[in-house]
């Protein structure tokens, strides 16, 4: 095998040696050397179309970010979990919000009853956000926030907290998910109709390009599409179709594609089929690079590079024999690493039953550390590149994605296709087929439809403190009592004016956040101005 690059500069060690003492090169390529097809379809790592990875050195230069999605209860509970994770060697934060926050309701709204702090942390005002990041230096830790409809507001809160810590907005790093299109397709935590939602997304692109240059203003997510039951090809195609839609929206606003495209990031699922998943990640990079360069005319190589976070497949976890989930997650994490992910969340073994306990989440983090530090797969770039099987799967997935793009284009684009229920129907069909195949035992799920039985699991589950809701509502009401109501009203008027017009909403939202307006108040104004989306149920 031809050695593309020997050990070079910018790597985390001066040499990489196998456990038996053999030196390992940075990257291996075709024995006969690079031919036209290799250059066109693969390219070396760090070279267009980036099939083999976006950096020449990949994990030899820097390991992926180990980022465990976490959040529950009040801001104090979650802050403690973040400090624990950072103490255990995690390198980035990832915030899970509860349902009322995701849907823009305050914790004392009648619809929030029973939901506060259950599946994530409750955030009503800047006061909660201050506690959430207390003692965590926002100039050194990057933070990913899984938030969509109210993404602009939570981002404004984060910026305000950083500035209170003395960290200016141009120094903070992180990601807001902010991918509203996949909400209509799969995750369903939408609030406003698609068109005003897209406007809000583009406002964040423009604000980010101007003011927060190191922040990823969107994480275009296939994860939830896959969790809703899609196939690998659907996940790939629908995610990238959404990506194209955001680029179009940015261009339509008059933004220069090379100004915002480098801040677009992606988020994929790593499911159980090891080789198909690796192929999916590689196909995603190649398709995106080609779309950005050929279709959108981007000239900055950073616009061509698809950077992505991966989470192992929550839907693959089983309540039966939960220890098996550790093994599943390990394989899925390995696929993500061999697929060249930039950051990774590994699920905990108990997540089919509840939010993860501290012990389970530590074990999940250790899984990444074993892959990174012991297995050796991080010591050479794209070790599977050139595999006949893998390259074929990669080409097939690319073709299937292309076929879906054509179908979406024929329907008039992503938003009309959403309104027609196209994606929803494709996903629901795939979910049902999958379940039928599992029950027909055409697909094996170890511990469920084969090798089942054994004693019921003795797993120690996390229980969210039942006093959470009460405590959260008390704090919210105290904030409302102590703030300057006139300042809040003034700020909310500013939000309304911007919503009616075309001024960037980020500026008035920052004002409102600083005045301690509640999430529900700000979202309430936007609900009045933008209307609410109701979905057609598609089967």
């Amino acid at each position, binding site marked *: 095998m031809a050695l593309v690059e020997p050990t070079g500069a910018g790597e985390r060690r001066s040499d990489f040696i196998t456990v038996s003492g053999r030196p390992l090169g940075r990257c291996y390529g075709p024995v006969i050397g690079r031919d036209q097809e290799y250059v066109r379809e693969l390219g070396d790592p760090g070279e267009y179309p980036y099939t083999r990875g976006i950096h020449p050195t990949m994990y030899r230069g820097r390991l992926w970010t180990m980022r465990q999605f976490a959040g529950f209860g009040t801001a104090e509970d979650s802050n403690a979990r973040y400090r624990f994770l950072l103490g255990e060697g995690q390198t980035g934060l990832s915030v899970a919000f509860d*349902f009322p926050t995701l849907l823009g309701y305050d914790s004392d709204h009648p619809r929030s009853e*029973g939901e506060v702090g259950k599946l994530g942390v409750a955030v009503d005002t800047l006061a909660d956000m201050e506690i959430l990041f207390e003692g965590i230096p926002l100039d050194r830790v990057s933070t990913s926030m899984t938030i969509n409809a109210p993404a602009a507001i939570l981002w404004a809160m984060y910026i305000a907290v950083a500035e209170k810590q003395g960290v200016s907005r141009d120094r903070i790093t992180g990601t807001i998910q902010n991918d509203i299109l996949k909400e209509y397709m799969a995750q*369903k935590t939408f609030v406003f109709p698609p068109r005003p939602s897209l406007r809000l997304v583009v406002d964040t692109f423009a604000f980010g390009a101007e003011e927060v240059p190191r922040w990823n203003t969107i994480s275009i997510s296939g994860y939830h599409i896959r969790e809703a039951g899609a196939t690998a090809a659907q996940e790939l195609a629908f995610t990238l179709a959404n990506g194209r839609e955001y680029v179009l929206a940015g261009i339509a606003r008059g933004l220069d594609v090379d100004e915002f495209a480098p801040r677009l990031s992606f988020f994929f699922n790593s499911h159980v089929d090891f080789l198909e998943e690796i192929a999916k990640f590689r196909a995603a990079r190649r398709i995106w690079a080609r779309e950005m360069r050929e279709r959108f005319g981007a000239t900055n190589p950073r616009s061509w590079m698809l950077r992505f976070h991966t989470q192992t497949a929550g839907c693959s976890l089983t*309540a039966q024999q939960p220890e098996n989930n550790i093994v599943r997650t390990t394989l899925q994490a390995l696929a993500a690493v061999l697929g060249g992910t930039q950051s990774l969340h590994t699920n905990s073994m108990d997540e089919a039953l*509840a939010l993860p306990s501290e012990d389970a989440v530590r074990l999940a983090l250790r899984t990444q550390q074993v892959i990174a530090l012991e297995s050796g797969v991080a010591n050479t770039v794209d070790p599977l590149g050139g595999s006949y099987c893998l390259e074929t799967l990669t080409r097939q997935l690319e073709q299937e994605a292309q076929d879906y793009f054509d179908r979406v284009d024929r329907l008039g684009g992503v938003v009309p296709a959403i309104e027609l229920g196209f994606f929803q129907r494709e996903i629901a069909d795939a979910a*049902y087929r999958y379940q039928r195949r599992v*029950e027909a035992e055409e697909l094996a799920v170890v511990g469920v439809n084969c090798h089942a039985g054994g004693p019921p699991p003795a797993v120690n589950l996390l229980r*969210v403190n039942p006093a959470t809701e009460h405590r959260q509502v008390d704090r919210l009401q105290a904030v409302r009592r102590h703030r300057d109501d006139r300042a809040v009203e003034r700020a909310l008027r500013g939000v309304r004016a911007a919503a009616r017009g075309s001024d960037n909403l980020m500026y008035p939202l920052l004002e409102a956040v600083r005045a301690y307006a509640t999430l529900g108040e700000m979202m309430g104004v936007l609900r009045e101005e933008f209307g609410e989306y109701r*979905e057609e149920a598609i089967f």
Partner: protein
Amino acid sequence: MDRIIRVMVAKPGLDSHDRGAKVVARAYRDAGMEVVYTGLHQTPEQIAEAAVQEDVDVLAVSILSGAHAVLVPRIISRLRERGGDDILVLAGGVIPEADVPALLEAGVTRVFGPGSRLDLIVDFTRELAGSRI
């Protein structure tokens, strides 16, 4: 001919996970049942009222948000207030074993946790509906 069983599949609260609810709804349909789907984000009051109006034999509540302890008993008490006391209630989703007794106590007939087989759910529902006049 056997009478046609009517089932309502309901999504209470702010929970947005609808994969399971939709898969179960399709399984019911393919087993020859009529399935009324409520859509997402329904209040307990809306679900109870709808179940009464639709006169379903079985109300299958899908919930993965952890809010079951509050929402499910409220659905059942509203059902009783509205004259739907003979509608049988099933719960499915991520519901920890420890929470099951309280739900049964509140009037749920059975809880189906993660990984429950569709044919088991369908058969149980059919049997249950048969016991309703």
